[in-house]
């Protein structure tokens, strides 16, 4: 089962790097989804490893929270895009000045 956990770690790392390097807010969001998916894979793997279903329940809740988070996040991105005509995370820097 170790290989599943390693795959999960690799996917999580890729998601992390994506969040740090990509500038488009929507792609950053996709990378967050990738990290959540990687965590889900680890949870489901451990559920099989330990022979109880709590891991699958946790993965299910992660999916629900991810759905709610995506709805709100994308609505925020749309609102920012409407006012500033840009979906880049670097352009939303008014608080800096």
């Amino acid at each position, binding site marked *: *089962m*170790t*290989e*599943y*956990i*390693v*795959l999960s*770690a*690799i*996917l999580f*790392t*890729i998601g*992390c*790097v*994506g969040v*740090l*390097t*990509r*500038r*488009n807010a*929507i*792609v950053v969001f*996709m*990378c967050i*989804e*990738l990290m959540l*998916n990687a965590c*889900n*894979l680890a949870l*489901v*793997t451990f*559920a*099989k*490893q330990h*022979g109880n*279903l709590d891991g*699958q*329940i946790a*993965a*299910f*809740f992660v*999916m*629900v929270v*991810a*759905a*709610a*988070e*995506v*709805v*709100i996040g*994308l*609505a*925020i*991105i*749309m*609102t920012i*895009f409407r006012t500033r005509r*840009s*979906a880049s995370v*670097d352009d939303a820097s008014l608080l800096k000045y």
Partner: protein
Amino acid sequence: MTFWILAPIMVAAALGILFVRKAVHAAMLLAIVMLSLAVLYAVLDAPFLFAVQIIVYTGAILMLFLFVLMLVGVDASDSVVETIKGQRALATILGLALGAVLVTALSQVTLGTAVGLDEANAGGNIEQLANILFSRYVFAFEATSALLITAAIGAMVLAHRERLTPKETQASLAAQRMRDYAETGKHPGPLPAPGVYARHNAVDTPALLPDGSAAESSVSRVLVARGVIRSGPAMADDIDEVRRQLGQDPSEMPETSGKSGAPASTEEDVK
């Protein structure tokens, strides 16, 4: 076996998300990762999560991403300018370090033989999940409903826009058109229809005016911007070509309207 086929595909697709320029391509690569994950869930004895992963993640969440991409504009690609100097390199180094640490740590671990879910799944995976969900996790489940309704209301509030100007009615639009005609001479009627030809009858072909020039306002501005318009003069050359194939001499025939050399546009820009 399934794992060793899917794992390289997933890692390659995930790496692709880091490097593709267009957000739509990133979404497609993410779809590959999510669908492969669904198959892995099936392999890991989680048929319920397999279905939910496809229906909720790939079907709903990813479609939501695509909808927003459509609204924002698919060509909204990443800028390559670094706001913080050296951030990209640092992030890559830190990411590699994190990955190395995680993989090394995991390779030190022996998980032992997997217990397997045969016992826990006895009587069906979905039934057993429901048993746990509605007993031990029932409060978390109820809290989820509050979360979902908050998210729905939040999205509605964020997407709502107050109307600042009164709504345009049909009467006011008609009055505005006539005013424009009186002041600037802008044509008040509908735009000409595209593509009225014997051979081509398509929206990407501009209509020809009586003087032989192409009516630019007859084709959609979107098609013009994409550069997929067939020009009127090119069409006229096509017509000459057909006449030649029919064994007629084009020079003896009456002049085809819109032949090359005819002015591309003499018509004033109607709207």
